[in-house]
């Protein structure tokens, strides 16, 4: 079982604790009205990506139980969220996921399903894919790089080719095609200890290269910095990049990102029903507002103005253009 890396590394010289950094800038990170319910259905994954903050992988057994799924559906039914975002691990591998998506789909204006593409390419995911298409659930697919050596170094040998093949298959089903109503967004994380490129420029390049070289279309590309937690943090430490990466994030701290941070409008539910301010706090074991609670304990979404739990990993979301 992977352990927390928090205790084994000293904060690099020159990097202030994130909470103190906010104070220094006269800033406070508090919640706004909750708009998105993010549901992490488990840490089981077919891949063991080197940047994974949750240390998901094939050996993990934690998946959401039918009872917790029922609580999530009940909560979503009672409290109208603008969006529901289902993530993992690889959500495709969770027993009962097709039925769960079928029932979640009508409960928000936009419902998203995060996929690493390879899990969706399995024959066992065919029924799920039919449900997602029929219910117009938007797919959010990981595609770190258009370079095979870079993508495969993060995700495993052959990952890029398999991902491209799955993207073509999704296009044939209508995902990412104009006028289909079937959304297909891509997410790119850097394949090392460096920050991502600007989103607009990266989207232009991905769109042009994927169309020209592979005939693949998609709707939007999102680029996000890797968060120094879990397996990624251990790689940073083992490769001697931890201090440099933390300094890079801290140097790129942009106070203007705070208003748009996703944690301000997100309720993140773990596979076991515990609630967090974001998926990264989930990885770090920092409960919502600093107080451990389950979704079933909440009367409703957290109120605007409530405190958000922070840690040094928050520097990843406030670097440059930010993680919104």
């Amino acid at each position, binding site marked *: 079982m992977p352990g927390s890396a928090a205790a084994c590394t000293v904060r690099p010289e020159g990097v202030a604790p994130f909470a103190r950094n906010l104070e220094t800038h006269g800033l406070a990170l508090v919640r706004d009205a909750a708009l998105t319910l993010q549901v992490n259905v488990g840490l089981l994954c077919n891949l063991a990506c080197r940047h994974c903050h949750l240390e998901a992988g094939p050996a993990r057994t934690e998946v959401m139980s039918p009872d917790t799924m029922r609580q999530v559906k009940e909560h979503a039914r009672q409290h109208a969220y603008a969006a529901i975002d289902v993530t993992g691990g690889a959500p495709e591998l969770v027993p009962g996921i097709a039925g769960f998506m079928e029932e979640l789909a009508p409960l928000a204006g936009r419902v998203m399903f995060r996929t690493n593409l390879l899990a969706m390419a399995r024959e066992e995911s065919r029924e799920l894919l039919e449900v997602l298409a029929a219910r117009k659930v938007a797919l959010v697919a990981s595609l770190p*790089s*258009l*370079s095979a*050596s*870079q993508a495969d170094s993060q995700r495993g040998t052959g990952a890029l080719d398999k991902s491209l093949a799955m993207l073509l298959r999704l296009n044939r089903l209508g995902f990412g095609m104009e006028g289909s109503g079937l959304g297909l967004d891509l997410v790119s994380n*850097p394949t*090392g200890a*460096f*920050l*991502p*490129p*600007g989103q607009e*420029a*990266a989207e232009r*390049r991905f769109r042009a290269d994927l169309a020209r070289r592979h005939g693949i279309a998609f709707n939007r590309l999102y*680029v996000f910095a890797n968060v120094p937690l879990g397996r990624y943090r251990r790689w940073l430490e083992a490769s001697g990049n931890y201090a440099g990466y933390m300094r890079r994030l801290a140097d790129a701290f942009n106070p203007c990102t705070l208003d748009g941070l996703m944690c301000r409008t997100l309720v993140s539910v773990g596979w076991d029903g515990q609630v967090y301010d974001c998926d990264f706090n989930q990885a770090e074991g920092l409960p919502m507002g600093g107080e451990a609670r389950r979704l079933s304990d909440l009367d409703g979404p957290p109120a605007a103005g409530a405190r958000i739990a922070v840690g040094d990993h928050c520097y990843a979301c406030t670097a440059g253009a930010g993680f919104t």
Partner: protein
Amino acid sequence: MDTYYDPRDLQQFGDVCKDAPELGKAFFEYYGKIFAEGALSGREKCLIGLAVALAVQCPYCIESFTKQCLEQGSTLEEMTEAAHVVTAIRGGASLVHGMQMRRMAEKLSM
């Protein structure tokens, strides 16, 4: 000083003109403008910067432009091709001087 090159020099690059601040200010303003988006994208400029860094064999510049190329989304394939462009031009520059050699040799030969 143990070595001529110290990686910390790059972080302290701004101090290099302490005794000529006006010139330093002018240089760094110019430098910043050169790498802003223009007719060439920031990514393209960084690839050119990497190629020149390899050509002038500046370890500071190689570190800086390798990082910048990655952060601009360039792939290792692109960066490696940039290195080969440098290699071709450096090698070609030597080889084309062979024309001088030939002219000289032909003049001196029967």
